[in-house]
């Protein structure tokens, strides 16, 4: 098994496996052409894959053809991946995540509150329905995907690019929403974080609390985004018109 992990621990060898998955039974020359590697380089990597039993070869005349051997990979899946997908294991992993999140609840990296004169139902609709979000989001007119456990909500900029993706992880109707926060506008490598909306009805007013956890360095600018989002939401719910940023 060590040899399998070692063989897989290299991008070129993974590329060779992918190439063989697309078309099994390729010659050394075929692989050399597809991978833009020297003949010697391809041979070296093929030897590692062969000794891990991930590929097999067959010689026909002057040519040697390479074939995927899926069995060791399947054994690895059965031993190292499948058990961790079992419901019990998954439940434990979720429990761990939740407990860790509860611990972090003590101190968000960013927190703000806003008071809105509206009904609890209206605020809940505005926070969970994609078409409503598009009406008040300060930078996006189109939002796709209603808020639901495990579902993604994408905020689309006028140029068609998604600026933000959020997956709902927890939902307590009319009181709490926990979501991931994937800031696509910062590029594909921007680290994701997570945030929580808390709703508290106080007489004829709703208090909305926004907490942002695990913000990375250099993400202080999110504070302004939240302020713009929250005040636009407030204006939208109280007057029917949002505060869209000049675009």
């Amino acid at each position, binding site marked *: 098994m060590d040899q399998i992990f070692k063989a897989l621990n290299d991008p070129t060898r993974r590329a060779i496996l992918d190439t063989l998955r697309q078309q099994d039974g390729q010659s050394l020359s075929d692989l050399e052409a597809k991978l833009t590697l020297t003949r010697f380089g391809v041979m070296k990597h093929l030897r590692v894959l062969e000794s891990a039993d991930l590929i097999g070869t067959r010689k026909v005349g002057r040519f040697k053809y390479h074939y995927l051997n899926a069995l060791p990979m399947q054994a690895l899946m059965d031993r190292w991946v499948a058990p961790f997908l079992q419901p019990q294991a998954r439940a434990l992993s979720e429990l761990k995540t939740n407990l860790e999140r509860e611990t972090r609840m003590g101190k968000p990296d960013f927190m703000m509150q*806003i008071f809105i004169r509206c009904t609890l139902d209206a605020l809940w609709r505005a926070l969970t329905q994609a078409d409503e979000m598009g009406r008040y989001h300060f930078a996006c007119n189109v939002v796709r995907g209603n808020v639901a456990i495990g579902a993604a909500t994408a905020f689309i900029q006028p140029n068609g690019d998604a600026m933000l993706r959020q997956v709902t992880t927890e939902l307590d109707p009319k009181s709490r929403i926990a979501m991931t926060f994937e800031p696509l506008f910062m590029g594909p490598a921007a680290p994701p974080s997570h945030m929580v909306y808390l709703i508290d009805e106080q007489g004829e*007013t709703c208090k909305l609390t926004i907490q942002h956890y695990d913000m990375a360095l250099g993400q202080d600018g999110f504070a302004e985004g939240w302020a713009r989002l929250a*005040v636009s939401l407030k204006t939208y719910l109280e007057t029917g018109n949002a505060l869209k*940023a000049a675009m």
Partner: protein
Amino acid sequence: MTEKPKFMMQTYIRCTQDALWDALRDADAFQHYDFLEQRAKREGDNVTYMMPDGTVTLHARDLEVVPKTRLVTSFEPTWAPDDPPSRITYEIAVEGDFCCLTVLHEDLTNDPSDGTGDGWVRSIAGLKTWLETGKPAHFGGAYLMEQM
């Protein structure tokens, strides 16, 4: 130099610069949006704030006035008469058809999370609602009183 606690918040209000400036400067406007439904009375550079029953809670003195853009006042609460006064700065920036209002409360002797910040959040929310809807808004007034 040790940094004293401070509180900062920003909001965006759909209104004219004049309307926002007047709401901050005009003592009579205060009763329409303060979270405790307090009233304010101006005498020259000094503004006195009082609860609906007339109890005086706060004095504020104009320290710097740049019309429509910047207002700095002292903040001298009667509940902490021995503390040195703290300082409030309001700044207005126009952005399209709305204004960005920045509130900075500096030189505090207390941690703003002990209620000062909450008061600001409630009052500025009231100010925004009042300016945008024309209806008085007291976020927390009656509700907070019931809780006390």
